């Protein structure tokens, strides 16, 4: 029997009951529905938890219950839209002879009891580098506004909130995990009328590396631990395979994979249990993170990495880079720089002025975080 210490524990319980179609326990003393809902939203699992609420005898007050229902409905609408956009893009890619691989959320949805449970902020594809320009034109033809600033990825945005990312590799060159994953198309098999699919080993390895990437960069929330549970449930013996272990070992995440799998099983396994004391740091990191992690965690990890590399004046360098970002970063909002790099100083000033007038709160939070972050080796 698991006891609920806080809103996070109860939220995890509700999510687990939905996944296993079990009847949840009633709201425990000391926990309020409002906090459970807020945690659910910040971790991207409120929509899953909603289905368990329906089985409770005592439900949240009508105002909150409606808000929760609207959150669930909006995840359905978003899923229907993303599914439509995905099919539209795959169809157009196929017409243009572009081989594509679906990764991240679109594949992880398959392991959820219902696809709409797994919310996504964007749709990710991998294509061959030679097709990047054609892919950009395809997206533009479908009404997306595109940006291709790095030469290895195209991001597309279409109103009201559709974001598509077209990559050419599993991980970018500057990622720690770039070298451990091979050519995405090496194991990819084309299916008639569909995107290519990679082997189970590659899908599992990539998905776990992706979870690790977020965990070690800015922290990752409850939803990614649920992804891990469902990946392990779907591929029960794959993590024991030599080729998979070899990649995790090369990436230096063997211990992480064991820990996150254990945590995932404790939280979401059919028989829930309390995570061991050994996992307490991971539990705190995950609970604090939310879907997109935290600035605090991201900076702390970034600074530690720099320290490992022997970089001096880490914080000063960071602030300098934030004030005067390199061209690659500026190009996102100032595409004019591509043709007129001489305008760079003007863009820096314009960006700074905009930030000071419009994002003062965010900036002061970041400055405070930089000041307070301790640099650990």
């Amino acid at each position, binding site marked *: 029997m698991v006891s609920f210490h806080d809103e996070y524990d109860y939220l995890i319980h509700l999510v687990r009951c939905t996944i296993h179609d079990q009847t949840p326990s009633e709201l425990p003393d000391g926990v309020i529905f409002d906090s459970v809902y807020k945690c659910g939203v910040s971790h991207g699992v409120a929509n899953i938890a909603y289905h368990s609420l329906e089985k409770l005898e005592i439900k949240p007050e009508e105002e909150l219950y409606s808000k929760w229902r609207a959150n669930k*409905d909006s995840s*359905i609408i978003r899923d229907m839209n993303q599914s439509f956009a995905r099919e*539209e893009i795959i169809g157009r890619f196929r017409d243009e002879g572009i081989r594509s691989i679906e990764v991240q959320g679109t594949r992880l949805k398959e392991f959820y009891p219902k696809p*709409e449970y797994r919310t996504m902020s964007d749709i990710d594809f991998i294509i061959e580098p030679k097709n990047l320009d054609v892919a950009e034109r395809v997206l533009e033809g479908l009404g997306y506004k595109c940006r291709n600033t790095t030469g290895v990825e195209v991001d597309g945005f*279409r109103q009201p909130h559709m974001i598509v990312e077209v990559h050419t590799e599993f991980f970018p060159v500057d990622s720690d995990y770039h070298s451990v994953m091979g050519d995405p198309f090496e194991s990819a098999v084309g299916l008639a009328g569909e995107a290519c699919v990679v082997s189970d080993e590659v899908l599992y390895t990539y998905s776990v590396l992706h979870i690790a990437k977020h965990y070690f960069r800015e922290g990752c929330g409850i939803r990614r631990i649920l992804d891990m549970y469902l990946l392990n449930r779907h591929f029960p013996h794959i993590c024991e395979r030599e080729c998979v272990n070899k990649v995790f070992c090369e990436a230096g995440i063997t211990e992480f994979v064991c820990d996150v799998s254990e945590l995932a099983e404790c939280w979401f396994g059919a028989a829930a249990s309390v995570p061991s004391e050994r996992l307490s740091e991971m539990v705190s990191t995950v609970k604090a993170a939310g879907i997109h992690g935290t600035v605090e965690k991201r900076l702390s990890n970034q600074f530690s990495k720099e320290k490992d590399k022997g970089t001096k004046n880490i914080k000063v360098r960071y602030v300098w880079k934030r004030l005067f970002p390199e061209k690659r970063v500026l190009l996102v909002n100032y595409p004019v720089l591509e043709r007129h790099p001489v305008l760079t100083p003007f863009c820096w000033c314009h960006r700074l002025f905009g930030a000071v007038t419009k994002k003062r709160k965010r900036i002061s939070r970041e400055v405070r975080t930089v000041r307070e972050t301790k640099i650990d080796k």
Partner: protein
Amino acid sequence: MKLKYKFVVRSIDGNTVAAAVGTDNARFKGMIKLNDTGRFIFEMLSEDTTEEKIVSALTQNYDVERDEAASAISEFLQKLRDRGLLTEE
């Protein structure tokens, strides 16, 4: 007449729902819950049709009297018109 926006219809937890997709989702952000006959009519409205054609198709596919079908369809179409979801071209 036909639906003004591109809709996708899906069955979820035993219910049928419709949502506007693509750029049309910016114009209609809600979700419409449909019953079985509502879905039938909705799918007919994805292409240009007439009220008369819908009544005939419904009476052919469902065990319903023509007058009853005509009245229900008229009410349903009016609801769609009120929400600005129909275009009468």
